[in-house]
């Protein structure tokens, strides 16, 4: 070869350039309920979503939603802040950098890293959030979401982003709320169309029934008839579903929904802890059913087979264990470790006991227990990691069986 270095250079360059070019355009994936519909119905939903929310690279700021999209300031230094909607765009950019690889483009918890993680990253699209200061199924407040970003969630792969600073975190929070609202609108529309009978499987069945009477009828005809009904009122349907979502999110800011103790916390002395322990083991509260008599998260409920949500005919999962609202196996918290996922302040534990954890089998005891009792339980729970041999005696346990004496950690 006359010029070996030249050929080598050409080979090297072509290999290097082969990777260049535009990456594929990011898309919001359809959720499972939408994907189960017949394609023209999916089309309807996709169009409604693109019109009101846009695509990841072309966001639409729907004014109906309670989100501060950012007003353009012509005097701003940064060029992009001079246009309206800059907050949503900045939020999206930050989300793409920091959150996308776990939480996915649409906030569906299906990013490329997600399959390596246990517990899985949150799927925001149902508007269900576990850790918040509001009651029951109410949405979280802006502060709740900020807190998660600042503290991370100990015991999971959700890290703390406190170093990004409050302003950037605020942008991410608003983008996440926007993703959640988008997901909820999609879910509501998909449920609506499924109820009309536009699921692919349902449509097949309807067509077969109709064929018994009229041999010439086609699947398309059956489908188009149902679609025509839907299309005539489609804009109103979309607006109605959106309004529901907006109302849900606005309720989060209602101070009545904030869970705040009405009594000061009782001092964490031996009596309080003993009372808390009795409440924990009692038959009425059944804490030990899930969390176990010694608080290790190994109660008898963890060996039951949970029913599959929405399955008809009703049937159970193949694997034993409690399930969360997303269908994943969820372990009751091991209280001996001292790891508390949404904060270790007495206030945080009070909230967990009072309102439960949305989206999980953890119930709220706010209606059945008084505040003093909840504080006793909180004091007991906070003391569990520091006690040696916390296995209770036989007569204390609701089932009556004594447990082997073990060290606390």
């Amino acid at each position, binding site marked *: 070869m006359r010029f070996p270095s030249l050929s080598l250079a050409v080979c090297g360059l072509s290999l290097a350039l082969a990777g260049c070019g535009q990456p594929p355009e990011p898309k919001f994936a359809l959720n499972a309920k939408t994907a189960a519909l017949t394609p023209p119905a999916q089309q309807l939903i996709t169009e409604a979503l693109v019109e009101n929310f846009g695509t990841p690279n072309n966001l639409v700021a729907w004014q109906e939603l309670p989100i501060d999209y950012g007003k353009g300031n012509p005097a701003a230094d940064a060029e992009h802040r001079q246009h309206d909607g800059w907050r949503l765009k900045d939020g999206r950019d930050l989300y793409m950098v920091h959150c996308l690889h776990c939480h996915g483009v649409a906030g569906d918890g299906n990013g490329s890293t997600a399959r390596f993680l246990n517990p899985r990253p949150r799927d925001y699209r149902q508007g269900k959030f576990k850790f918040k200061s509001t009651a029951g199924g109410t949405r979280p407040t802006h502060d709740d979401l900020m807190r998660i970003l600042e503290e991370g969630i100990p015991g999971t792969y959700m890290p703390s982003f406190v*170093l990004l600073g409050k302003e950037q975190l605020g942008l991410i929070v608003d983008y996440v709320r926007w993703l959640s609202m988008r997901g909820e609108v999609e879910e509501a529309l998909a449920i609506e169309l499924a109820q009309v009978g536009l699921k692919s499987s349902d449509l097949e069945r309807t067509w077969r029934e109709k064929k018994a009477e009229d041999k010439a009828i086609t699947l398309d005809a059956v489908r188009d008839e149902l679609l025509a009904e839907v299309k005539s009122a489609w804009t109103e349907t979309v607006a109605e579903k959106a309004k529901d979502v907006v109302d849900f999110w606005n309720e989060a800011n209602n101070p009545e929904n904030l869970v705040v103790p*009405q009594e000061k916390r009782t001092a964490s002395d031996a009596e309080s802890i003993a009372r808390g322990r009795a409440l924990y083991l009692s038959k009425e509260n059944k804490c030990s059913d899930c969390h176990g008599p010694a608080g290790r998260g190994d109660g008898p409920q963890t060996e039951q087979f949970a029913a599959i949500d929405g399955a008809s005919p009703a049937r159970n999962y193949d694997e034993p264990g409690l399930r969360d609202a997303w269908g994943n196996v969820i372990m009751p918290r091991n209280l001996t470790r001292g790891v508390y996922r949404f904060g270790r302040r007495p206030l945080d534990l009070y909230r967990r006991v009072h309102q439960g954890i949305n989206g999980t089998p953890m119930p709220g005891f706010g209606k059945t227990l008084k505040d003093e009792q909840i504080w006793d339980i909180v004091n007991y729970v906070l003391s569990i990691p520091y006690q040696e041999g916390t296995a209770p005696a036989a007569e204390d346990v609701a089932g009556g069986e004594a447990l082997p004496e073990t060290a606390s950690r």
Partner: protein
Amino acid sequence: MNRLWCVFFSVAAILAVVFFYIGPAMGWWFPGVAASPLGQQIDDLFYLILAITGVTFIGVHLVLGYILWRFGAVPGKKSMYQHGSHTLEVVWSIVPAGILLFIALYQMDVWAAYRMKSRFDQDALANPLAEVTARQFEWRIRYPAPGKVLQETPQPDDLYTVNDLHAPAGKPVVIKLRSEDVLHSFFLPHLRVKQDAVPGLVIPVWFHANEPREYDLVCAELCGWGHYKMRGQLTAQSQGDFDAYLKKLQQSQNEDGYREAAAE
């Protein structure tokens, strides 16, 4: 043409050393001036080694260049065979060995100051600032309650925070480094401090931040898919500010959310 290449390679080597020397002054090399006394000593050691090896490197390349120039192949001329010189072999074994021995002994003090527990500031060692547990992919920090001494096992009144390590500036402090899962490494680039966090061990690490400001804390041992973003921050503060910070942390950690009902 060959002679041109001789000059080129000799000059390139010399230029390289010049850039290595002026690099830190231009901010191309070290992350800023060392912000701790021991860090400054480490940088001084680095420059000493750079000087010694730089001189050797330039010298060798000049000689190499000269030999290539003077004794390059000439068509028609036969090369001369030489048996080698025993004296030369001895000289250029003893002299570099001597230089290396010098460097090894010269740096012992800095190494001891950094690694030997008996050389740590004993006050700081008896009252560690915090236990820092590296975890995929964050730094979890446990301070003792103000006025108490850090215990090996968590205490009910310990204070917890994540990623943002506060410390008093201007004096040596000790942290106990642990890992919850895999190997990580506690790296403060500005202070020239680096210590692997080994699962199963509790390793005392000391550092002394000169000024009250924020320093980077990064993970320096590949620990998984999030290693690249396992960043934290060391916030060095005056003693008064640090005490106030701990007090505030204690208050917020004991927050029970109860507010006296305002007059309605």
